């Protein structure tokens, strides 16, 4: 995939892919932000037709970081068409991961506990007492 892009001769690696850390900031249930910990990411920078693109992706994925950077650079330059079927490739990737998500969601759905509950009516939580 990358070979095909680079064979066009207009893509250039601005900064080689490198492993880095992103510190995750999360909000707790009091809405207080805190740092949960760091996630490993791969980051790369590519120049296409004078426009630079930066790609960051979780995990040890130097080539996907390059791909994302190339896509962004191409889009910035307004000549996204040069990406050709890259778009489909990325869509297929996204499709695959979303299918996995649906699959695990259905697996979880199958574990929903079905109580033999009365007719549903709103439960007045306040009535439960302090």
């Amino acid at each position, binding site marked *: 995939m990358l070979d095909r892009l680079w064979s066009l001769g207009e893509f250039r690696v601005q900064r080689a892919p490198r492993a880095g850390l992103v510190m995750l900031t999360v909000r707790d249930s009091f809405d207080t932000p805190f740092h*949960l910990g760091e996630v490993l990411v791969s980051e790369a920078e590519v120049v296409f037709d004078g426009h630079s693109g930066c790609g960051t992706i979780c995990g040890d994925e130097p080539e996907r970081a390059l791909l994302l950077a190339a896509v962004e650079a191409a889009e910035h330059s307004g000549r996204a068409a040069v990406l050709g079927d890259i778009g489909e490739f990325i869509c297929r990737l996204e499709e695959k991961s979303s299918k996995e998500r649906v699959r695990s969601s259905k697996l979880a*759905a199958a574990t929903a506990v079905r109580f033999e509950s009365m007719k549903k009516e709103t439960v007045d939580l306040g009535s439960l007492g302090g």
Partner: protein
Amino acid sequence: MGYVAVKGGAAAIENAEKFSLARRAGGASALLKPEQIREQLHLAVDRVMGEGSLYAPDLAALAFKQAAGDTFEAAFILRSYRTTLPRLGYSEPIATSGMRVIRRISAAFKEIPGGQILGPTPDYTLRLLDFELQDESASRTRQRIRQLLQEVQLLDPLPERFPKVVEMLRREGLLVRHRHGSGDGDGLVDITRQALSFPAARSAQLQTLARGETGGLLALAYSNMRGYGSVHPVIGELRVGFLPVSYKNPGSGSVECIGEIQVTEAEVISRIAGAEGPAVFSLGYGLCFGHNETKAIAMAVLDRAMACEEPVAPSEDQEFVLTHVDGIESMGFCNHYKLPHYVTFQSELDRLRNIQIGQRPPEDTPS
């Protein structure tokens, strides 16, 4: 290959390393591949990531293999690898309400809007050794999984979002609004850049607990649950799922989702906090990498315990808890006693012998 007589420790160190290599990989069994560990020992990998405070499943699996299964050692290896990587930036603050849930239960109500979702849990199995696993047949296991997938095919997937139980309680005015008893001003502290000082800000407390060692957190929380402390916890909600990581692209500046991380979140409700003010429930919060429910619950109980105005038990003393739950620090210091101490011991001998002699030897040695 002859042994070069290397003075002192060098040869011994190398041979010790080779001996542990032989211990790990000298057997007849096939060498473990990290992806086998990542997939089939995923709970160990989650624990190592949490305690190593680095979300990188492949590397955590590699560290677990390198450490021959010692989670302390594996978390330590991950922690020191972190030091070699540049910090590229901070993610945008992520709200956990957007979690893609695969497990979500509450002990506070029989039924909760969105339902009690058991998800992947052995909680209700009988813990009897499953001897079939001794020679588990790949085909039969794959077949059972395929069959399960077919069965669930017709089901609707879970909704995108689930309402939070604590949110419902808060709307009813039953839950404490803000957090009291936390550190001096609640600035966002990063304990990888600033040493802890006490009282510690809430952000420092949660970050320290999140990277804490599971056993240490459990022991402290358990002491509180058993009576050394006043938290009578009810799990308002326990979630296991995936959080999107949103990160501002350094080039374009637009915020993108660069991946997902699995987390476990526990929200613990417990009896009325302080005496003053309207009677309300108070809340303890726990969040950690991967699927580690024991740790998340222990975190939430300790988070609530440390909010006590007057700490009575160790688990309620913020300084006591936060300085003793880091596995890399505690394991390191515990094992440092293996290092030679003969100079200090010599000094102790000198003191003891003097005391036994009973009287002070004449002024002969230079003061």
